[in-house]
């Protein structure tokens, strides 16, 4: 159960924890957009590649500083990433074989033009001969590294924001939709209940696994058929208890007079502070910078680019140091 730690709220009190959840969501999305920007510079795909990595580098830098500030253990993060090595590997393989296969080479024709075919995988016995392009390898590295940074961004969001605050923020974002009778509150309620029950379900899983282990089930070793049986012994009780719980909860809510249409107020009010304005301006600036770079075809060998990069990094560092001074981090009781 230990690698479930990925993205779990960690009870500290850092300035990232104190930021407005609405701000954190928007900032995260802005950074993700910046992260996924394409630099379609004609005939210069190496430039695209390098620029992508420079942008990724800046965002990664912000991510790492945020992790340190928010007490998200970087070691723990990489440990939990291990759980998704399979996804990463799959993406990598798919990209290598599909992104720049000869037919899609037209699509990335500039890349193809510049790198050409690089090496071939040959298996004479199967009469198999498959070309691998450097361009496709670049593409895969790009996608995988973006994915990892994206995950770490969401992880910072979820480990510094209580799930309930997140749903409040979602409800706030959806509130204009209430005008067209969109069930914003119901969706937010469903979401917060679902979030609330994740730990309960994990505990339940743990309990059932223990109970079945006591009956000699081995979840980790053994033949495939036995392991499928073990999974059945876990999933059926889990589903039954989940359904029971949801029914009980619905009954209990109704018994206490819950009415989804009622007008309600919140115990916790979302509050926007000066820090929030600073952070959102900062992320906007980063996105703007990336857009400018992309639109104006600025590249790393454009004079003054390195100067701007340096200034961006300097601002980032100073900002985090200042914010760090303004708000010490300490552990809080759960």
């Amino acid at each position, binding site marked *: 159960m230990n690698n479930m730690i990925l993205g779990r709220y960690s009870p500290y009190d850092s300035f990232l924890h104190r930021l407005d959840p609405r701000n954190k969501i928007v900032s995260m999305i802005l950074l993700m957009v910046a992260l996924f920007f394409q630099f379609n510079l004609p005939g210069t795909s190496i430039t695209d590649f390098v620029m992508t990595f420079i942008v990724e580098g800046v965002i990664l830098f912000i991510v790492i500083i945020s992790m340190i500030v928010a007490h998200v253990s970087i070691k723990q993060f990489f440990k939990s990433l291990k759980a998704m090595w399979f996804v990463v590997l799959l993406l990598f393989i798919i990209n290598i074989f599909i992104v720049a296969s000869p037919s899609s080479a037209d699509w990335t024709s500039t890349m193809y033009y510049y790198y050409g075919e690089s090496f071939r995988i040959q298996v004479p016995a199967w009469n198999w001969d498959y070309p691998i392009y450097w361009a496709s390898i670049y593409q895969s590295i790009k996608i995988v590294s973006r994915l990892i940074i994206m995950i770490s961004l969401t992880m910072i969001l979820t480990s510094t924001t209580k799930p309930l605050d997140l749903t409040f923020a979602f409800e706030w974002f959806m509130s204009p939709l209430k005008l067209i009778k969109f069930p914003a509150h119901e969706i937010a309620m469903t979401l917060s209940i679902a979030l609330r029950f994740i730990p309960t379900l994990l505990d339940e899983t743990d309990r059932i696994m223990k109970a079945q282990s006591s*009956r000699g089930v081995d979840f980790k070793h053994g033949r495939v058929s036995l392991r499928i049986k073990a999974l059945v012994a876990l999933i059926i009780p889990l589903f039954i208890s989940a359904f029971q719980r949801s029914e009980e909860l619905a009954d209990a809510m109704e018994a206490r007079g819950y009415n989804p249409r009622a007008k309600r107020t919140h115990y916790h009010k979302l509050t926007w502070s000066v820090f929030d304005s600073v952070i959102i301006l900062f992320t906007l600036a980063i996105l703007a910078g990336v857009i400018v770079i992309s639109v104006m075809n600025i590249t790393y060998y454009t004079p003054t680019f390195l100067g701007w990069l340096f200034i961006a990094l300097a601002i980032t560092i100073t900002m985090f140091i200042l914010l760090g001074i303004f708000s010490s981090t300490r552990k809080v009781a759960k």
Partner: protein
Amino acid sequence: MPINFKDVSFTYSYKTPFENVALNDINATILDKSFTCIVGKTGCGKSTLIQQLNGLLLPTKGEVIVDEFVVSSNRKRRTKKLANLRKKVGIVFQFSENQLFEETVLDDVAFGPTNFKVSKEEARKIAKECLLKVGIKEEYFEKSPFELSGGEKRRVAIAGILALSPSIMVLDEPTAGLDPEGTKEMMELLKKMNESGTTVIVVTHDMNLVLTYATNVIVMSDSRIVKEATPDELFLDNDEKYSLETPYIAKVVQELDKKGIKLDTKVIKDVKSLASEIARKRKNK
């Protein structure tokens, strides 16, 4: 062979921000063939303690020794195949009725033995015996376990553990939510198992049951063991009560004591033994 806890500590989510100490330096012995009750306030670590017994949880410090088995987080010390320990120590969990999953009651009970390389036929035979032992009638055998009542489900779950023929049987609050009749039947069943040579360990909040059935009591408080005693020492002689509720029999004995009637507390277990002790006292006078 008794069960030995040696300096056992256990922390949930060890080395994460969610650390939660549940056991703190536990040293205890549970005697062979005893009927031991573990009592204490809710959240004091009883369930955590019993899960150390078959290695479902490994102590973060110290070790538990059950016969030739060593449960420890130290790989070198730990017994390699904990599966065999699971056959020896059967644990019935709190709300064990939630672990049933097979299509019929009989198959569910037979599921355990088949995990230990018992043939299907043999397993079903064992399952039948165990179901009868816990008082589930034959007409229920082919029913779906989900059609049963809560109390019946729990019996089926107990039969599921019984089918492994463990020499140590551990039950976490087996009587919670049962009616008085069901409670009595459950405890009589455990008593019978104990008399036939099984070590029985029961976690319970019902002190009346402790006085009537237990041969030994372990009192826990705040992740530590604060007292190991026999029930009469705990309830009848001792003034400290470790904030445990006093069984009604013990209250009667205490009141009689105040009135100057001294009884031999060792033999008093229930109403019957209390009455015969009073009768004996009167005869002697």
